[in-house]
């Protein structure tokens, strides 16, 4: 349910709501569960966005990927911009930017690693670059799908260097993730405003990128 204060919550959270209006909003919050829940969601998005690690991809890869999302030249500022991002954006806008950054970072870094023929390095920090912000799918499909395609290409090229068991395990787990993504999308059709479903979809998409990245690295390491 949306009321006159719903669109003002981000200003309130950001400290940009005029002083004169704050008491009225706080009074409203005391009696409106929906607005309290929305405010909690906003806080959660901000907290998760702030935890993003700034991992700029290799320069030679960044240009092509950045072109696809219209963000060329922004890589150096990405992390700082995220942390400084004010909640004057709507939740979907904030989430879209977050997932775009996620796709670029994940795809770029993995492609870079695969090109370098990364050896059997230590396990990468599992959650350091996890992103769990909400993600309106329509806004992020472009960069995400591009990153997935790029990684799939790397995996396909190196597929012959992987043994059949590893290929089977990777394919089986990618199917599991694809099924989960499909179920999330289906659920979102029925409840597109669900913050949980959007966040869960974004996280599951991220898991697919991570697995593709892992497969790409394994393929590259066998060369």
């Amino acid at each position, binding site marked *: 349910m949306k009321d006159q204060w719903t669109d003002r919550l981000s200003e309130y959270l950001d400290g940009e709501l005029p002083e004169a209006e704050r008491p009225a909003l706080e009074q409203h919050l005391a009696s409106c*569960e929906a607005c309290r829940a929305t405010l909690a969601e906003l806080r959660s998005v901000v907290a998760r966005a702030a935890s993003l690690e700034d991992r700029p991809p290799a320069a030679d890869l960044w240009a092509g990927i950045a072109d696809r999302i219209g963000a060329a030249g922004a890589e150096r500022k990405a992390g700082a911009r995220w942390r400084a991002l004010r909640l004057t954006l709507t939740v979907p806008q904030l989430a879209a930017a977050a997932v775009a950054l996620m796709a670029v970072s994940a795809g770029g870094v993995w492609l870079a690693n695969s090109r370098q023929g990364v050896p059997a*390095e*230590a*396990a990468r920090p599992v959650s350091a670059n996890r992103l769990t912000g909400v993600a309106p799918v329509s806004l992020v499909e472009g960069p995400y799908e591009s990153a997935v395609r790029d990684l799939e290409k790397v995996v396909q090229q190196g597929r012959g260097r992987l043994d059949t068991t*590893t290929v089977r395990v990777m394919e*089986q*787990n990618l199917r*599991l993730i694809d099924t989960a993504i499909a179920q999330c999308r289906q659920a979102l059709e029925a409840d597109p405003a669900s913050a949980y479903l959007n966040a869960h979809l974004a996280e599951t998409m991220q898991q697919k990128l991570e697995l593709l990245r892992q497969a790409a690295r394994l393929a590259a390491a066998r060369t």
Partner: protein
Amino acid sequence: MTGTMMLGLLVLLQGPGHQYRDWDQDQEKSGGADTTIAVRPGTRLEVHDLNGSITVRTWARNEVRVLAEHSKKDQVDIEYGGAVLKVSASSRRGAPRDVDYQITVPTAMDLTLGGVYADVSVEGSTGRIAVETVQGDVVVRGGRSLVTLHSTNGDVTATGVQGRLEANSTNGTVTVEDAEGEMYVEGVNGDISLRGIRSGNVDVSTVNGSIDYHGTVQDDGTYRLSTHNGDVTMTVPTGANATVTVSTFSGDFESDFPVTLTGGRQSKRFSFTVGSGKATMELESFQGSIHLVRP
């Protein structure tokens, strides 16, 4: 004095910056290497094993002993340069066959252990530990500061870790027991179990598997357990203070104790407070059950 012992002596005399090869042409069935190398404090051990196993134990000496069993056609190469002692195997014909390493290291030595078809086991280390294998199990007992463990197709078990733990298995279970510090655990197809945990920062997720947490809930802590297809069981100690957010699409929620919703309930996402609500607890399962239980 055997050739192997002579090699060990050679290493001790010459120290870092040299490469050693241990050809084992005079041993039965499989070859074998037994080499002891003096190392300086701060040296990191790096082992790569294509097939076989790596077992690391510790002792109170500034020496690394490498005991290896391998085919007669293979050799163990030990290279000590800079601050890294590298151990790997090679063959005169193609890739080396199975090599089983038993390595003893200084207790505080940092370890980077990698394998492809290899099981990896570490016991008693207080250094940084990084393990990655493709098809094999990982078992670590001990470990401080940073411990990162990954298996693509195998189980990962960490016991007694103190520090930051990052554990991941794509197609296996992850079990963490009696551990203290930040916990970041991920999986895709496998259950995740954390028992006896003392942590204020726990982040666990998998796609197809259940998650079970049994440990402390610190007042300033953050605990996030998320799965797509599986149950989530969170043990809430008596006296814990947490704001709990439960999210599911088609799953159920059950609690051992009464809870009163504090925020708006949106579909199947709702919040409630336990005690003073200081810690943050997020429990998510798309299509599994979420259980809150008492110890």
